[in-house]
Structures are given as C-alpha cells and as structure tokens.
C-alpha cells in the first residue's frame, strides 16, 4: 500500500481503528471477493476456452490455452441473422437510454414532494407505491397485456418504455435517500429567498442525492439492458439484443463457449456504466452538517 493510502486510512480512522483490524479486514475482503467472483471468473474462462478444453475431464475452471475463437464464432453468427444485428443493438440502446433517463427524472420528481412535504393523499400514495413492490410479477403478464392492448401499445417501443418510467423501485429508492440526505432547513431557507419548487428540486435536492441517482442509474440500466423476449413485441425488427443473443445460445449444447462469450459481451455495457457512476459519486456531502 502506498503512503498516500496509509495517510488516508489514518484520516479515515475515526476512533479505535487498529492496524491489526485493518489487515484482518483486508484479508477477509479479498477472500470474500474471490468467492463472489468465482462464477464470473468461470464464465470468462469458459468464453476463452478452445473446444478441447470445454470437454476436458476432470474439468478445470481456469483456461490453459486461451483463444478468441468463441468471440469470433459469436460475431460470425451475429452477422448472419435475418434482421441485421445493429438493429437489435439500436433497439436495446434506445429502450435503455430513454427508459433509464425517463425513470430517474419522473421518479425523482415524484419522490421529492412525497419525501419532504405533507399534503392530502401524500401518505396514502406512498403507501400504495411501496406496497405494490410486493405483488408478485409472475401473474401480471395477462393483466398487463390486456392494458397494453387497450392502449394500442402492442408492438411499439412504448410498451417497454412507459412501464419502465413508472417502475416502483426507483421512486422508493429516491424517496428514502431524500429522507436521509436532504435537510429540511435548506429547503426552508430557499423558500425565504423565494425559490420556486422547480428551482429547489433541480438546484438543491438533486445535487444532494447523487449517490442515489448513481445507484438507480445502474439498477435501471441493468434491468432494461437485459430486456429479453416480451409478449408485447412481435415484429422481429423491434426485438432486443438480449432476445437475439438468446436465440443463438439455445441452438445447441456445443455452443457452451459461445454462450459464455454472450454473457461477457452483455455484461460490458452495464459494467462500464457501473464503474463510471461509482467513481463519480462524491465522497460525502459537504452540506450534511446542517441537517437538523
């Protein structure tokens, strides 16, 4: 560990942080992380294995002679589809970007008054939203289809985007973080200066809840990016990347290596979003000192 980090630990050490405790913790974290990563390491190695190693006995997790053949095969298969692969990629990108941005915007806007103010119906509305999280989605397919059909949304991007806008998770998450991170006193002093609701929302609330936005960004990107086959979309040219790739995997057990390659390729975009959002979250909020 370099001296700068040591200094940081010392600075972080608020009270009774022993060096022994720190070392034990680092050892524990390393082994725990390895355990967690094992299936992912397996998938990465699997995608790099030549076919001779795929069927080896006894099997090994790590790859001996890594090859990019599985990835080359994947791209050959991808360039061979009836609808050009770029169309699937566009569909998924479009749904993910519009759905995520829209959801974060609408959910934050709704969470702000529900978290910070009391007005007729506010408690009941939040209770309904929170409770609805617990209804099992498994039986909602048919009611959802009936509604999409009634609204003439079948076979349009909107059938995937509009429900994403109003997904429950984001509102609940944003509301809880606003409860914690936005001091009422700041909003009151803004009121004295005659700030409008929109100004308070965009200039005070949103900058304060950056960790929440970062969390929601990754959760929603991940969810929408992996959207697969749905009953609402039947035109082949409107289907998603995840659906198209799953068609490749299901066609044969001999494609285990290609299947792993697909998993890794699909992981890249959410992983990138996650890394960028995590490293941009500000360490601690400088204003939290005036919380009441």
């Amino acid at each position, binding site marked *: 560990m370099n001296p700068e*980090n040591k200094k*940081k*630990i010392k600075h*972080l050490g*608020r*009270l*009774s942080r022993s060096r022994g405790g*720190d070392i034990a*913790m680092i050892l524990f*974290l390393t082994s725990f*992380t390895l*355990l*967690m*990563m094992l*299936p*992912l390491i397996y998938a990465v190695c699997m995608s790099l294995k030549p076919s001779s190693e795929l*069927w080896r006995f*006894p099997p090994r997790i790590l790859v001996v002679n890594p090859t990019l053949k599985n990835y080359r095969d994947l791209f050959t298969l991808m360039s061979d589809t009836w609808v050009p692969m770029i169309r699937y990629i566009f569909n998924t990108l479009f749904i993910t970007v519009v759905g995520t941005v829209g959801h974060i915007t*609408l959910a934050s806007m*709704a969470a702000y*008054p529900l978290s910070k*103010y009391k007005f*007729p*119906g*506010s*408690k009941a*509305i939040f209770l*309904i939203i929170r409770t*609805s999280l*617990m*209804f*099992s989605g498994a*039986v*909602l397919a*048919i*009611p959802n289809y009936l*509604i999409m059909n009634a609204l003439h949304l079948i076979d349009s991007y909107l059938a995937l985007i509009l*429900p994403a*806008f*109003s997904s*429950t998770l984001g*509102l*609940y*998450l944003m*509301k*809880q*973080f606003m409860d*914690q991170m936005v001091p009422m006193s700041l909003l009151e002093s803004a009121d004295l200066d005659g700030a409008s609701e929109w100004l308070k929302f965009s200039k005070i609330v949103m900058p304060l809840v950056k*960790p929440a936005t970062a*969390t929601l960004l*990754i959760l929603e990107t*991940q969810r929408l990016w*992996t959207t697969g086959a749905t009953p609402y979309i039947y035109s082949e040219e409107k289907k998603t990347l995840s659906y198209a790739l799953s068609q490749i995997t299901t066609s044969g057990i001999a494609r285990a290596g290609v299947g792993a390659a697909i998993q*890794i390729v699909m992981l890249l975009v959410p*992983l990138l979003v*996650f890394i960028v959002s995590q490293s941009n979250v500000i*360490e*601690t909020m*400088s204003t*939290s000192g005036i919380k009441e």
Partner: protein
Amino acid sequence: MAANVKLGKTSGSVTYDNLTLKERMRKDLNWTWREMKKNKSKYLFIAPYCVLFLIFTVCPVIISMFFSLTDFNMLEKPNFVGFNNYYRMFMQDDLFIKALGNTIMFAMITGPGGYIISLVMAWFLNELPRAVRVILTVLLYAPSLAGGMTPIFKVFFSSDAQGYLNAWLLDWGFINTRIKWLENENYVVPIIIGVVLWGSLGTSFLSFIGGLQGIGREYYEAAAMDGIRNRWQELWYVTLPLMKPQLLFGAVMSITGAFNIGSVISGLAGNPSVNYSAHTIMQHLEDYGTTRYEMGYSSSIATMLFLLMIFLNQFIQKCINKVGE
C-alpha cells in the same frame, strides 16, 4: 381513503362541537380542498409518475386480484366463483400448504441472511480508502450485473459427466460414484440456500453503500466527543440510525427477494423438484399459471403471497424503527 387521513389530521382551528355529520364532512372537504390548492405544485411534480404508475402497476394488480375470484383459464370467459380459490388453497391443496411451509423456511433463512451479508459488506467497504472501495464494490457487484449465474451453479453441482464438483471429488478419490446433488432431498435445499445467499449482494447492498456515503464525517466526530468508544457503539448509535431510510428500503427488497426465489429453485432443482422438497409458492404459482393455465387459481396464490409479505413487512418496519434506541 383521503377522507380518513384527513379526519385524523384536522385539529387546531376546526372545532367539531355542535356540528352535524354533514356539516363536519363539508368542513373537512373544504379544509382538504384548501390544502390541495395550496400544494398545487406538489401534485404537478408527482402527477406524471403517478398516472403511469396507476396504469401500469395498480391496474394490473387490481385485475389480477379480480381474476383470483374467478375460474379464469385463459380460454373461456371467466366466471365469478367468490372465495372458492382461497378455500381450495387451504382445504384441498396439500401441496400449497407444503409450498407455504417451504417458502417461509427459505425466506426466514435467506431474507435475514442476505440482508445481514449486504449490510456487513457495505459497512466494511465504507471503512476503506476511496479507490479500494470503488474497485471492491465493482468486483462484488459484477456477478449480480452479469445476472443468470444459476446455470453456472447447475453445471457445478450437476450429476452428469460435466458436473464439476463430482468430477473433482472422483479425481481426488473422495467418492467412487457420482453424487446426485440436485436430485437428493437432503442436498438440494442447502445448495439452493447457499446459491441464494451467494447472490444476495444486490439492490439492498448498493443502497446501503449509497446510504453510508450520505453520512457526514462530523457526525462521527461529534459522537466521539459524546463518549462513543468503539466500532460497535458507533455502528449502533450513529451509523445505523442515520441510514434508517436505506435499512427500511433494504428490508422491503429482502422480503420481496426472499419470497420470490422461484427462478433459482427452478433453475437448480427443476419444477417440480424431487419429492417437492424445494417446492415454494413461486413454483406452485408457476405450475398453475404457465403449465396448467389455471390463471384464476394462480392469481389467488399470488394475492395470498402478497398479503403474507405485507404482514411481514409491517412487522419488520417496526423492528427497524427500534434501531439505535
């Protein structure tokens, strides 16, 4: 519902003595209307979300609850059958009772287990310097990002020629014949619990990490001056109370997760599992909904599960509100 909320709140300037019920209601309504007008901008803020939420979440849930009172089979027009489905569930369906027991057993272990793992890991990570913390967070959450890890565990425990665990045990001479890990009642349940716990660093974990980042350093400094001595006291009296909103959020997530572990079970043990040893309400629901097309009955199972989770959530929210006392 709105009127009820109001009755509790109305106090102060409004007095109820010597008023008939009608006049009271009119006063309440007037008060509500004035409050609503005063908060016009707030309604504008929540309107776009709430309209979409009503259409795409509340309506489907209500339709599904209505189906639970019918014999809907996806082909014929549904007939209203009252509470027959619920009667059948508890009186005639032994498998449902077994599934209920299994669900509660799985939920009692994986719910609190996963919750504690997420919280402890988030807390550990928060003690680390920023760069290390970001790297470890990414590494720990990456498997959740990749999703669909169940097939990999299935290969690992599989009893066919490709099963990793059996192959290693055979190779090292511990066993002579392959063990049917996923087809044996005694092994399959612990394996499922292990895999579910392995995957518990998900949504709650991320929200805990975010919540810890929102606690300013000055709270700890102040606490140290107030005589907080060690990490544990600091955790209980400073950290946890300050991240109560995230703790409540994580609890709801854990409950939903713990009661909905159907896909991991079906992925590892199949549906139905051997002797129904890992049969949960989700398996039961999937069986009736997608295999037998008994949509009415499966909707009533979903409604029952919903009520169970609401009840548990009330209880857990009460417990969490005691944190730091």
